[in-house]
């Protein structure tokens, strides 16, 4: 397998995972705001906080309202972190990797892209936005299923899994970031009152509610949720699960050098976190650190296998 192709497939998977995550995030946030009574200090602004994109947002917008933020996150083609930009980057990567993938893979992403492109305007309207996001989520899942059923589970597939899981781990850590913000000591009694709803939505954002209930046999509570999302071994979107997926792919790729060791270290690091013992500030520090470690791991992948330019 060409180094160039490995790089393109890896990015294809990252961009598609990002597309799906943005859709998920906006979807859940919308539901959350519908559940919470007016006046609770939850707002759309939090969505741009966790992406660290406030600066870019305020360059283009003055008010952080639903309309502006959803347009920015979903439909702004000039913002590289938007859903449409991620999807179109994914499409460009798959267009240039067609020889490695089943035909249906390209058609699937192309169709989804055309759908998104033709319906960008509709996201301003809440009802249409729900349809739009559903279509995108379905499309992403269809793609994942299609590859798992149609594609040889060989090196190209492993690079796709690598990209998907590193992006997924990163997004989960960002969602935890958002959660830690909401946990802040200064939160009002009103927020405390609706906390369960909030945590349920965080779980939903990561498709974790059902699994959480099955595993924890307890009511939804903040500290448990945080630990669960970091460390559960069966939840596909937990940070631990993503890391063990990464380990599995890495161990089956040629020339993996010291990468398996780096991953063991990372695994240990995640296991050692105990959200019950940390303050909100410490937690934020830990999550920052985790994101940096994932970034460093990405660089190692690139050094090892990608075309050095």
């Amino acid at each position, binding site marked *: 397998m*060409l180094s160039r192709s490995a790089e393109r497939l890896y990015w294809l998977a990252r961009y598609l995972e990002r597309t799906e995550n943005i859709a998920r995030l906006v979807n859940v946030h919308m539901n959350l705001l519908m559940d919470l009574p007016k006046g609770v200090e939850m707002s759309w602004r939090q969505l741009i906080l966790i992406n660290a994109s406030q600066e870019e947002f305020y360059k283009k917008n003055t008010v952080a309202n639903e309309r502006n933020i959803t347009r920015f996150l979903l439909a702004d083609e000039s913002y590289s972190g938007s859903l449409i930009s991620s999807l179109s980057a994914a499409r460009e990567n798959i267009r240039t990797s067609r020889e490695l993938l089943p035909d249906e893979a390209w058609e699937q992403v192309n169709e989804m892209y055309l759908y998104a492109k033709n319906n960008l305007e509709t996201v301003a309207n809440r009802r249409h936005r729900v349809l739009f996001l559903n279509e995108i989520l379905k499309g992403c899942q269809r793609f994942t299923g299609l590859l798992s059923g149609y594609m040889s589970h060989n090196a190209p597939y492993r690079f796709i899994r690598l990209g998907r899981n590193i992006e997924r781990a990163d997004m989960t850590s960002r969602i935890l970031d958002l959660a830690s913000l909401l946990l802040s000591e200064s939160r009002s009694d009103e927020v405390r009152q609706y906390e369960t709803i909030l945590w349920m939505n965080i779980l939903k954002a990561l498709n974790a509610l059902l699994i959480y209930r099955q595993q924890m046999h307890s009511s939804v509570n903040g500290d448990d949720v945080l630990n669960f999302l970091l460390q559960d071994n069966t939840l596909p979107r937990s940070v631990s699960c993503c890391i063990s997926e990464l380990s599995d792919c890495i161990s089956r790729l040629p020339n993996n050098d010291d990468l398996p060791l780096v991953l063991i270290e990372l695994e240990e690091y995640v296991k050692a976190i105990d959200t019950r013992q940390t303050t909100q500030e410490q937690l934020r520090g830990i999550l920052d650190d985790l994101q940096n470690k994932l970034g460093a791991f990405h660089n190692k992948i690139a050094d090892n296998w990608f075309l050095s330019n």
Partner: protein
Amino acid sequence: MKSIWKNYKTDIAYDELMYSEFQSRAVSHRLCQYLDSLKKEDIDKRKIAAELAIMEMGISFTVYSDEGNIDRAWPFDIIPRIIDAKEWRIIEKGLKQRLTALNCFISDVYNEQAFIKDGKMPGEIINSSKNFRKECIGMKPRHNTWANICGTDLVRDKDGIMYVLEDNLRVPSGVSYMLENRIITKRVFPELLQDIDILPIDDYPTHLHEMLTSIAPHQNGQVTCALLTPGIYNSAYFEHAYLAQQIGAQLVEGSDLVVNDDDCVYMRTINGLEKVDVIYRRIDDDFLDPEVFRPDSTLGVRGLMRAWKAGNVALANAPGAGVADDKVVYAYVPEMIRYYLNEEPILPNVPTYLCGNEDDLAYVLEHLAELVVKPANESGGYGMLVGPHATAKEVENFRQIIQKDPRNYIAQPTLSISTAPTLCKGKLEPRHIDLRPFILQGENTFVTAGGLTRVALKKGSLVVNSSQGGGSKDTWIINMEES
């Protein structure tokens, strides 16, 4: 109900499907009747279905510009063009004969030059040809095939005869569109394809792979093929990716390849370097190897010619094969067929005047306003004069140009190329078409059943190039004999 064929004009040129608005040719009878049985809305629906399929399959050209990338959908006309299998079998034979002779000629040019020594062609033509590569002298590729992939352009004149317009021996494109056109037609007219005995075309990738394997430098064990593309900004990138996928080759760019001290070609993979045996290259000679050809080329691979000459890698088409793409050399193809194969040409050339010959030049200058004049070494219809469509001033201009460099110009009578019914704003109208079959030659020779039919979508236009308002049609070779 009014017939869809009412007022269809067949007096413009030879029409491939219709004798007149009242009568279709035998071979197109079923199709024409079927179209007539459809309501106008039905036909429109099929057209929309085709456009949708094209969008979803992502069959497009990408035009890259400063304003961003524009994906242009592949312009496709749903009405197929039809040729009787009886006629096709003769054309097919003619195409094989032609490519065989051309490969003999290229081999000869880079080795003995017997054709020239025997006085069949002035040596000056080769010595002054831009596409003669002295680096190739003495080379003998496997099976003596230099042009392995050829896309010959055929046109039918008013006399009903198919003429060879040009042999494209460098990096002909379009075969992926031929394949995709059939896939779309299957979606749009499934009933028809079921009932009519149309020769299949989807075996092309198999034959391409077989041909590439047959020219590999070694014949033991597995052959690694790569398709060398100029990259994602090339307008034919879609085709490169499509073909690589279809034949299971690695799609590589110049920077993916490296030639080591052992004069072998390797690609950079996740396992380290891996040896490549056969390269189907889709970049021109000029850009192939900065060590030998254009030093500023970033598309090619340094040392590729060294590896090829050492016999460690096969290149398709071989470097230097373009020498036979010269339009002056074209005029000698009938003679080549007689000389190398001892046969009479099956497919005629368009009569060609070589401005390098004094007599021909005098005739051409006298009849400029009636002739088509072409530069010898350009492709894609650049730098041409179409006498009957040119202004007096343009004709005079061209007179000067030819006189300055007669060797590099040829002239041909203006053909009245055939038409086929084409859906234009919901109505069937005649539009001019040509045909590009693809011929493969390695150990064996293979011709696609039909080829890519290109159509000039603008009324009256003779230009079928997709960059200039051309589209394409599916091409049906129909077996009429009862089996």
